[in-house]
């Protein structure tokens, strides 16, 4: 009867420990980031320079914005592997919209809407036709990349001169807009996941979909919604990509989906659903980005970089799981 003991007078001490345990995941990730900074800071020249820190933030945005939505999806017990092709497809679509002289703000809105609609296709297949989300998004993954390549012949689609798009890549007081958008979205997603019925319903569905349904949660609608949100976030990433490259590219964002999933998982979100946090994902995104950036600066052979990255990701998750286990026993 540990519960009754817990409600006994010594409750102050008892209250503190679960709090600490809850944040064990975040603490160990924070430690990992400090270690990465120490290692790359001493070994890789220019790693600590202001310019490189800005680069890291910008790269983090590419993974991060998609990772916020992916966190919701994975907490709900689903998976989305279509991120990379979705970003590339939207970048191409946006480039064409701008070539056709669609007003830039409207083009942005349309791009995000297209992303949401494409995402919701996967959501509907999952929610109403019981197709596993891995398969539904794998279909999107292949089809979207294929359409983009087919239409553009794998060539960049130039957007010409566009002040508004360029502005998106111009730093404000040294900080790139992409990073600001990422952080603003982070706050919004963290809020949604903790403070809205929608967010809590996602946790309930991931933890036990039957119980969630029997409690009156609209499981299907929420499943569609999270995939639509993921599509919209991929679209925002696609818009930022266009602003950075000045063109739409069917070959861009290759393998981004794996960086996104890796960031979420490194961040401590459980692939079996029901457990996870936005803060964890933020730290996970930083870990993944730091590794990528640092390995480049170290001048390691690009092929071998992939090996190192793979090992570090698995090691990070392993260490994290061990740390959480140990803190539970203690």
């Amino acid at each position: 009867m540990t519960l009754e003991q817990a409600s006994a007078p010594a409750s102050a001490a008892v209250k503190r420990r679960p709090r600490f345990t809850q944040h064990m995941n975040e603490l160990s990730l924070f430690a990992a980031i400090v270690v990465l900074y120490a290692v790359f800071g001493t070994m890789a020249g220019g790693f600590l320079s202001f310019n490189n820190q800005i680069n890291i933030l910008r790269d983090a945005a590419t993974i991060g914005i998609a990772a916020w939505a992916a966190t919701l999806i994975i907490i709900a017990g689903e998976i989305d592997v279509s991120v990379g092709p979705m970003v590339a497809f939207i970048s191409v679509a946006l480039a064409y919209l701008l070539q056709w002289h669609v007003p830039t703000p409207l083009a942005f809105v349309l791009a995000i809407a297209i992303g949401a609609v494409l995402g919701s296709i996967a959501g509907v297949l999952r929610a109403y036709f019981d197709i596993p989300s891995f398969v539904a998004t794998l279909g999107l993954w292949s089809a979207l990349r294929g359409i983009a390549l087919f239409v553009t012949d794998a060539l960049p689609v130039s957007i010409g001169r566009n002040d508004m798009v360029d502005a998106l890549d111009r730093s404000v007081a040294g900080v790139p807009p992409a990073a600001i958008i990422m952080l603003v979205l982070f706050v919004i997603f963290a809020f949604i996941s903790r403070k809205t019925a929608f967010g809590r319903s996602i946790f309930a569905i991931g933890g036990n979909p039957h119980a969630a349904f029997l409690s009156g949660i609209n499981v299907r609608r929420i499943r569609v919604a999270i995939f639509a949100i993921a599509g919209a976030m991929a679209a925002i990433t696609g818009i930022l990509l266009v602003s950075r490259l000045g063109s739409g590219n069917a070959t861009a964002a290759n393998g981004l989906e794996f960086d996104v999933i890796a960031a979420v998982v490194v961040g401590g979100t459980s692939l079996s659903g029901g457990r996870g946090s936005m803060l964890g994902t933020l730290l996970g995104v930083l870990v993944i980005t730091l590794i990528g950036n640092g390995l480049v600066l170290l001048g390691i052979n690009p092929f071998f970089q992939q090996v190192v990255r793979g090992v570090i990701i698995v090691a990070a998750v392993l260490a994290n799981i061990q740390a959480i286990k140990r803190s539970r026993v203690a």
Partner: protein
Amino acid sequence: MSTAAATQGVSAGTIVASLQNCTKRYPGVLALDGASFQVAAGEVRALLGKNGAGKSTLIRMLTGAETPDTGEVEIDGRPLAHSGSVRAAEAYGRGVRVVYQELSLVPGMTLAENLFLGRWPTGAGVIKGRQMEAEAEAALKRLGLDLPANRLVAGLSPAERQLVEIARVLLGKPKLVILDEPTSSLAAAEAEKVIEAVARIAAEGIGVIYVSHRMNEIRRIARSATIMRDGRIIDTVDVAGADTREIVRLMLGAEADAATALTSRAREKVVLEVKDLSLPPKLSSVSFKLHEGEVLGIAGLLGTGRTELLQAIMGVRDFKAGTINVDGAPVRKPGYHAMMKRGFGYTPENRKDEGIVPLLGVDENALMTDFPAVSSGGILSSSKISAAARAVIERLHVKAARTDTPIGTLSGGNQQKVVIGRWVHAGSRVLLLDEPTRGVDVEAKAQIYAIIRDLAAEGRSIIFVSSEIEELPLVCDRVLVLRDGELQEEFTSPNIDQDAVMAACITSH
């Protein structure tokens, strides 16, 4: 009846298994109290007793899963000598086999593969498919099941699956086969196949222990029935000579007679009326009325369709015919959300799989039926959440250190209180509770009864489904007995007599 004749044709053979004066004590419980018992080859012995009477412990003695504190277990003429895990292997080696209620077949594999699961006949690592299928078909034929052995188990009916399960056990040439409620999940017509198979097994000279509560089945295949209560073997009766009331009296004992007087707050107003509801194969024609402020018990054996009935009312299961009226008006499309809006709430039988979200706190588990009530402007309010959660916790006497303690760490009874509490939070006026006291300790059970009475006193109407007969008089204003797809008998408090209810549940007609 040919099957009965076949069984009776085998004269009492040698004793295949026996218990001599066995006692087994668990912390706080005397699970088996000086039990002596024996089964002969070729005999079908029925084993009767309510939940917790000691049937499972007796079975565990025979399988060697438990060692008695005192007394001896003999299988095939020799006592089991070892203890620990070796003991179970010893009993297995002497030919003791159990077929459990939960089926353990792999649906995506063939009949033959399932029969030999993990022990497939191989030559140089390759499975000998032909040989395996031929042997499997022969084994199935012994039970009267004429199916090609290359069929997938997924395509079989529940009764056929049960037979495959039995056939698997027969492959090892057993001496004693124990069947634990083999027909509990089957409709009457389907159960027939299993009953016939059991008679065939016995005719081959195998001893059979048949745990069941269905008297009509027992009368057909067993000559004698052993009745257990409170860990003791009360009597072994001649089935043909004993009437059902007599057997029930032995099962429940004398304590059953004290009737509890409840103050009924049931009013005239009918909140729910079910008319001629049919949901084959389980329910053929079910009709009843539920009044405002009433606690209506539904009794019936496992697998009689109680859960299906509740699910049909809630709109999570389609039914074939019949009408459901709420407040006198028919429900045309009883979708789950529509029923929730009408003020209905449902707690599932399987709390762990369908009731709780183990990782989330008590607060969210209790409040997820109505998040808007704890939000302001679409945003969840921490103060409202903790106030509402505390209200549920106090109201239902949930023992939890904090409102956000993960519900998975609570005891079964406290989890159940939260699951009921979520409908109190939602303001439901009709609660359908499916086995709310299953897997709950005695103290929490008493609390749940009190909670249910309180909720009814406030004017809520409650349907209380239970397989534990003894709790019905403690909670219900009225009890209906579900049997053979229909509601058969009605008992009204204070005349809810346990013996009579039990007899109505198990009786043959």
